[in-house]
């Protein structure tokens, strides 16, 4: 019995103010490692498909890894897991800071929130004492104000996770801020927290973090530190943070500008890391627990209308709020960053929504007056700042934008969906995947949507020696380290995904294992043995990561059987218009080619990417995860008669074709999926007998649909 590998979990029911303590056995460590992996399993098992993301049944899971609390470099990560109000799918969001370490020092591995508080509440976790407090005084405060208030009331040794006005106002991309300036971003998990009326969670711990072999672990830590010391990429991150990426991307003409319409922006270097540091806007910030890379920055604008200070910014923020909107005024973008932090708003999606708005006005689909007096044009820093404010408070046009580009475009209509650069309801991260093919594949297969925090296959550029070495190891030659090649990219993506999943589940940072390529899988094996006293083979460790990836996919297919791995329409249909990559596109044919190989590597069903029964069996998921069968697709046969034949899906024979279903699918769902309007009052036969829209179907059923027939 290995106590170090067991999990102590607090289930907090916000509706009834009850706390239930559960232990999960070390068997789950062997299968899922913890962190993201365990979060995925609990999310899947703890709720049925189809729950309202903003309702009481949706769980909000805070989980950390077994390395957190030790000095293993970068061991400070927290994973927040839930069903996203933006995508309606599985969503995990990682964040650093100091909260995860405090949770572990309080003696917990995970906290799961369910239900919905009747009034605004904040929760304290003081070692094993979990209490509920009235948060009326905190509601409405920014994340920073709320954190300061809690530090004042409770003490400075508490770690705080909080939502701001964006989460309170259920903005679909509201985030959760941790340790004042660190963001658990994307996907609207802040809105899930806001819907539960949970304003903040403060944690403090006095326990020690024990390990199996302290001397052995310290030696491993020392060797990792040596590798960090000789890593050029790590040094760049310490000195300039992720903003150091921006100059490079702009120089390469792959910086998304004006909603992915252009690829280079004159003056964008004024948003890059070296400019910001040189001009005194940006300096070293607060490192996450145990992290020597210390990429997090602190920025300040001392005078003028954009004066202020905050943590960050990150590359994505500078690219999304700045270059993406055509704004090159660093001070305006820094203000935008500060507001996003204070309001608890995802800067990538906010940037995407604002860009969608500006393009809609540019193309005449929306009148400029929709801005309520704002100058809705590219490059205007004051407009940028004002719009962020309105989004967070759902004021004026902010209410439309707060819904995200998918829903906003649905409401506005016309062609505006074409420039909603999103897939699944998630705005794409600021990477032009049309000229970065591994990223294109990674974005398409990412269970949360088209974004970089799933694989981050930076090796495809071959910028650093470690990256080229990795590509050569995987494919036999470093010639595959060429971003516009599609060949070899499935293998590159798979390695990165595997390692990313293990990384997130152990509670360390993807910068150490991917990006800087400092800690590899053999080292992780040794580190886990010393820290947890658990011996994995390399295959067992990789399988633990794979289990998580497949489980995430299962959750999504349980929600939506017909879903496919895609990219935003613009990237799949409009080629890059300028620069050295002019003409490049993520065409359907090109994407399908990479997906085919990717599915093959993973043992997923060809064409659809669905998990198969065999795959679940081989990973032990079939026997371990309760209800996993609900994610396996079975099919019904559909026959469309007479005029109904027009509704057959493209390429399918209307006389008879197969349609995937899940255990909840009704005939009404099928009619909706085929876009057959209600008014047609079709005659429906299920297995030859008259039926109706509310009837559930099961595998093997035959559904015949025809227009109303009359006798004669």
């Amino acid at each position, binding site marked *: 019995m290995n106590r170090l590998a067991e999990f102590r979990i607090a289930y907090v029911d916000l509706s009834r103010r009850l706390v239930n303590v559960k232990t999960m056995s070390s068997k789950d460590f062997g299968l899922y490692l913890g962190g993201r992996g365990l979060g995925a399993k609990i999310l899947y098992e703890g709720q049925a498909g189809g729950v309202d993301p903003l309702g009481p049944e949706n769980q909000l899971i805070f989980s950390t890894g077994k390395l957190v*609390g030790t000095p293993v470099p970068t061991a400070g990560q927290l994973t927040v897991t839930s069903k996203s109000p933006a995508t309606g799918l599985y969503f995990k969001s990682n964040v650093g800071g100091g909260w995860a370490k405090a949770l572990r020092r309080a003696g917990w591995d995970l906290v799961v929130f369910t239900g919905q508080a009747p009034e605004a509440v904040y929760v304290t976790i003081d070692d094993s004492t979990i209490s509920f407090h009235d948060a009326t005084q905190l509601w409405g405060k920014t994340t*920073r104000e709320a954190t300061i208030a809690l530090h004042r009331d409770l003490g400075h040794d508490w770690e705080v996770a909080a939502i701001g006005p964006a989460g309170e106002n259920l903005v679909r991309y509201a985030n959760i801020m941790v340790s004042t300036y660190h963001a658990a971003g994307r996907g609207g998990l802040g809105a899930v927290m806001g819907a539960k009326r949970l304003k903040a969670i403060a944690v403090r711990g006095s326990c020690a973090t024990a390990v199996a072999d*302290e001397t052995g672990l*310290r030696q491993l830590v020392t060797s990792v*530190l040596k590798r*960090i010391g000789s890593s050029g990429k790590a040094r760049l991150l*310490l000195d300039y943070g992720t903003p150091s990426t921006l100059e490079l991307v702009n120089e390469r003409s792959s910086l998304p500008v004006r909603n992915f319409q252009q690829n280079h922006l004159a003056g964008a270097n004024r948003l890059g890391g070296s400019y910001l540091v040189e001009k005194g806007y940006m300096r*070293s910030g*607060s490192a996450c627990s*145990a992290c020597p890379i210390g990429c997090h920055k602190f920025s300040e604008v001392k005078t003028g209308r954009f004066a202020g200070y905050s943590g960050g910014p990150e590359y994505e923020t500078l690219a999304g709020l700045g270059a993406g909107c055509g704004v090159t005024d660093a001070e305006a973008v820094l203000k935008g960053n500060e507001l996003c932090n204070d309001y608890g708003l995802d800067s990538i999606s906010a940037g995407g929504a604002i860009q969608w708005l500006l393009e809609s006005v540019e193309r005449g689909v929306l009148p400029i007056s929709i801005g309520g007096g704002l100058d809705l044009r590219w490059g205007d820093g004051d407009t940028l700042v004002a719009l962020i404010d309105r989004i967070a408070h759902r004021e004026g046009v902010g209410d439309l934008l707060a819904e995200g580009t998918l829903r906003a475009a649905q409401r506005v209509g016309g062609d505006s969906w074409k420039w909603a650069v999103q897939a699944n309801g998630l705005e794409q991260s600021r990477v032009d995947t049309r000229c970065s093919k591994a990223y294109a594949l990674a974005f398409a297969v990412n269970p949360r949507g088209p974004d970089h925090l799933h694989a981050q296959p930076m090796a495809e550029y071959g910028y650093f020696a470690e990256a080229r070495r990795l590509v050569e190891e995987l494919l036999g030659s470093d010639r595959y380290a060429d971003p516009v090649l599609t060949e070899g990219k499935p293998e590159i993506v798979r390695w990165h995904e595997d390692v990313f999943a293990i990384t997130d589940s152990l509670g360390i940072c993807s910068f150490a294992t991917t990006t800087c390529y400092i800690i590899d899988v053999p080292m992780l094996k040794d580190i886990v043995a010393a820290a947890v006293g658990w011996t994995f083979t390399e295959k067992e460790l990789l399988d633990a990561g794979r289990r998580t990836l497949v489980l995430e996919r299962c959750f999504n297919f349980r929600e939506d059987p017909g879903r496919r791995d895609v990219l935003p329409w613009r990237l799949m249909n409009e080629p890059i218009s300028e620069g050295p990559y002019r003409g490049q596109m993520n065409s359907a044919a090109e994407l399908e080619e990479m997906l085919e190989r990717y599915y093959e590597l993973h043992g997923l069903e060809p064409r659809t990417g669905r998990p198969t029964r065999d795959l679940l069996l081989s990973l032990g998921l079939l026997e371990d995860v309760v209800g996993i069968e609900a994610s396996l697709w079975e099919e019904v046969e559909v026959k469309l008669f007479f005029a109904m034949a027009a509704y057959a899906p493209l390429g399918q024979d209307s006389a008879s074709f197969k349609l995937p279903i899940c255990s909840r699918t009704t005939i009404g769902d099928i009619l909706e999926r085929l876009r057959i309007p209600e008014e047609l009052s079709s005659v429906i036969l299920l297995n030859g007998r008259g039926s109706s829209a509310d009837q559930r179907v099961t595998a093997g059923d035959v559904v015949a649909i025809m227009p109303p027939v009359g006798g004669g």
Partner: protein
Amino acid sequence: MSKTLGIDWRKCIGCGSCADVCSARILGSYSNDGSRIRILRSELHAIFLPILCLQCEEHPCVASCPVGAIQFAEEGCPRVSVLEAVCVGCGSCAEVCPHRGVVIFRGKAMMCDLCSGNPACVQMCYSGALQWSESGAPIAHVRQHAEQVAGFGRVADE
């Protein structure tokens, strides 16, 4: 010339690993307690200040001790040391230390002992905030550190 542990607080990024490995020396596990080096933190302003005994020339701790449990040697590593058997844990030394470098742990005063010449915290510090050097901590630097520590309460409380 003996080596000293210098602090360049402007380089401290607050990762906390120095305190974790220090506590492991006594506890065998990583903890907020039992560490001779601690970090004053202002997340709000991203300022972090490592505090520990700097083996300073003034060493007011020695005179403050009512039972004579603290000694200061002209040479050696460390120069300041606590006789655990004599110490009664009254905390007078902690109060007078200008660097807040004294920790009262399990009823006894505890100060950095430089790990007898190979400080564990320095090994963990990649940013260079903690330095183990031959040059010795110049008086001005030590005074500056004391000023920072004294002024820190204001910053942290905002």
